């Protein structure tokens, strides 16, 4: 990083179904908590970046920048960032650029999504906006369908069994049981996963992250120091349509962003103790562990077969159990990494947030100083 960027404050709403809260109220709650936790006050915020994917479709509300700015007394300049499910982390990356250039000193990044206001079939259609409308959508494909194709291809190539895949969601639910902000804090057994309703063969309902409401806010500053700083912020992209990919069993954007992030942070992979990865579907978690270099290709599931004390994966419960309000996820992963480092007293944590079928990917490395 060109400059030391500190995580000066964090706050989030619990993720879940918030029927009685609007998109503005969700943002307000997260912002208030972030400001409470920070040493700076509201008037120190000089820029706001809002990460959101679907507010037009779900809340008939675009123009989220000024909407968020007016939550603060001085209504600072504000903008919105959209990159499907990676919106949150891409907004963090945008903030880093502004901070490094010196254009801003203290930025409030808010990730927010309000998904439960519309029917599930409509949300499914809206989420398909993250895929290619001319190449992927016309045949009636949904996002679970895309990852169903990914899973079938992976199982065919590496012989992953349905029973093994069920370990992923089961572990994430067990982790979420300890997280008061998680949408689902119940335990599920691998058998529960295997026997849940079919969604997109071979994926079952408990392989899929839920539809959630929630907001997460993070104050990044070059002016107000804290014990946590961003050691790396890198993004990478790939083709939007899966028809333009050479393989479905690995996501090159993750590999690309990861190698750049390690270089930027000037650390080795094994110095990282906590990772929060984008498990929108269980199969994605397996592939992410491999693409991040924590397992060989085809061996990602081993990370879920036995616990590794030196590397925690999705201790928050991940997208599956903690919830996945799409625009908020990337910001929430960073907040959770800070909490994990604070508790474990370790030095490095990593977050990986992707959009679509990893057509955009952002990786952040957080350091406890």
């Amino acid at each position, binding site marked *: 990083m060109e400059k030391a960027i500190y995580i000066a404050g964090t706050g989030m709403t619990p993720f879940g179904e918030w029927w009685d809260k609007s998109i503005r109220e969700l943002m307000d709650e997260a912002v208030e908590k972030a400001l409470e936790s920070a040493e700076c006050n509201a008037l120190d915020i000089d820029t706001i970046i809002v990460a959101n994917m679907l507010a037009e479709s779900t809340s008939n509300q675009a123009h989220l920048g000024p909407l968020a700015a007016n939550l603060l007394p001085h209504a600072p300049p504000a903008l919105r960032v959209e990159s499907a499910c990676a919106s949150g982390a891409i907004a963090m990356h945008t903030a880093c650029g502004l901070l490094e250039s010196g254009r801003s000193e203290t930025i409030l990044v808010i990730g927010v999504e309000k998904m439960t206001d519309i029917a599930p079939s409509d949300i499914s*259609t809206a989420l398909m906006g993250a895929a290619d409308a001319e190449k992927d959508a*016309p045949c009636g494909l*949904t996002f679970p369908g895309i990852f169903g194709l990914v899973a079938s291809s992976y199982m065919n190539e590496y012989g992953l069994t349905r029973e093994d895949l069920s370990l992923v969601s089961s572990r994430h639910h067990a982790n979420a049981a300890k997280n008061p902000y998680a949408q689902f804090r119940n335990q599920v057994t691998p058998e529960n996963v295997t026997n849940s309703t079919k969604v997109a063969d071979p994926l079952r309902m408990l392989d899929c992250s839920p539809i959630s409401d929630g907001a997460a806010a993070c104050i990044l500053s070059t002016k107000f120091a804290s014990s946590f700083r961003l050691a790396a912020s890198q993004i990478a992209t790939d083709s939007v349509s899966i028809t333009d990919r050479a393989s479905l069993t690995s996501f090159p954007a993750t590999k690309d962003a990861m190698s750049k992030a390690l270089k930027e942070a000037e650390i080795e992979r094994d110095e990282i103790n906590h990772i929060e990865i984008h498990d929108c579907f269980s199969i994605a978690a397996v592939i992410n562990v491999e693409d991040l270099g924590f397992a060989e290709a085809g061996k990602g599931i081993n990370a879920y077969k036995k616990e590794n004390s030196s590397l925690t994966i999705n201790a928050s419960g991940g997208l599956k159990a903690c919830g996945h309000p799409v625009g908020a996820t990337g910001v929430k992963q960073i907040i959770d990494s800070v909490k994990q480092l604070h508790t474990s007293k370790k030095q490095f944590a990593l977050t990986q947030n992707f959009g679509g079928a990893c057509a955009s990917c952002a990786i952040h490395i957080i350091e406890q100083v």
Partner: protein
Amino acid sequence: MTNPPTQHRAQKKLRNNMQEGTILAITTVSHPPAGFNKAPRNIALIKLNNGTRVLGCLTTMDSAAIGKTVRPRMQLQRVMETGLRIYDVSYEPVLMKEVKQESLDHVFPGYIIALSGPSGVGKSTVSSLLVRTASEYVERVPIITTRKGMQGDNEEYIHVTNTEFKEMCDRGEVVACTNIPDRNVQRQYGYKAKDIESIWTKGKIPVVVTEEHLLQGLSDHFGRRSLLSFGLLPPGESKRAMLSQLLHRLRKRNRDTKESIEDRIKNAEKDIDCLRERNDLFDHILVNEHLESVIDTLVGHVMNTAKTK
């Protein structure tokens, strides 16, 4: 849901997708998005023979698996709220049959001229005239049928009972068969391999009158290459105009009862759709407006084929 202009642009590439391919990944979407039929959709990522990859629906999951070959088939995908009917390429898993050693000697047995088209379009008339005009090159293959004989039938039919028909099928003598139901009875039609092969032995080209299933059966048995397949359509700008033309012809020939005409028109609509949806099964589409020009065209093809033999 995809809007009409997006759909339109996507369909510009449709022609490129009309080719065989291999399944790379496969899934069944249990809850298709809004605007689609509620039934689960079988969707595959397919590598086409030209190397491009596409996403498409599979017509069936029977024998569908990663690595299997699929062939394209136009299908109605959905009807939009505005009434716009969206067609797209679906893919059908190809059933692989074991190649029998002895059949290797007869990789290309010869040509068969197949005439298809809706009831009343004049298949029988055209085939009779063709046989009469080019009798030294072509010969009509008798149709085995379980339907009762009626006035106006000529030597084209061999009438058998249902039991006899079934026995012939069980013995494998009938290579292509179809059931064209009447409102009262099931009516089976079929062709025997022996009849077709005996015409080849005489050095002539067999002529058959077919519909989708018969055509598919013949294509599966003798190979698609053996079929010189003609689709006959009545004149008319629209399907409705074609159907009213057929109705007129059926009434005029005075052979069928009112009910039978209704049944025939119902089947005719399917046959017209088949010409478009199964265009892989047809080599030429002819509009039967002037009988002479249709016969001239057919004779021209026969002569060409006879020369290349």
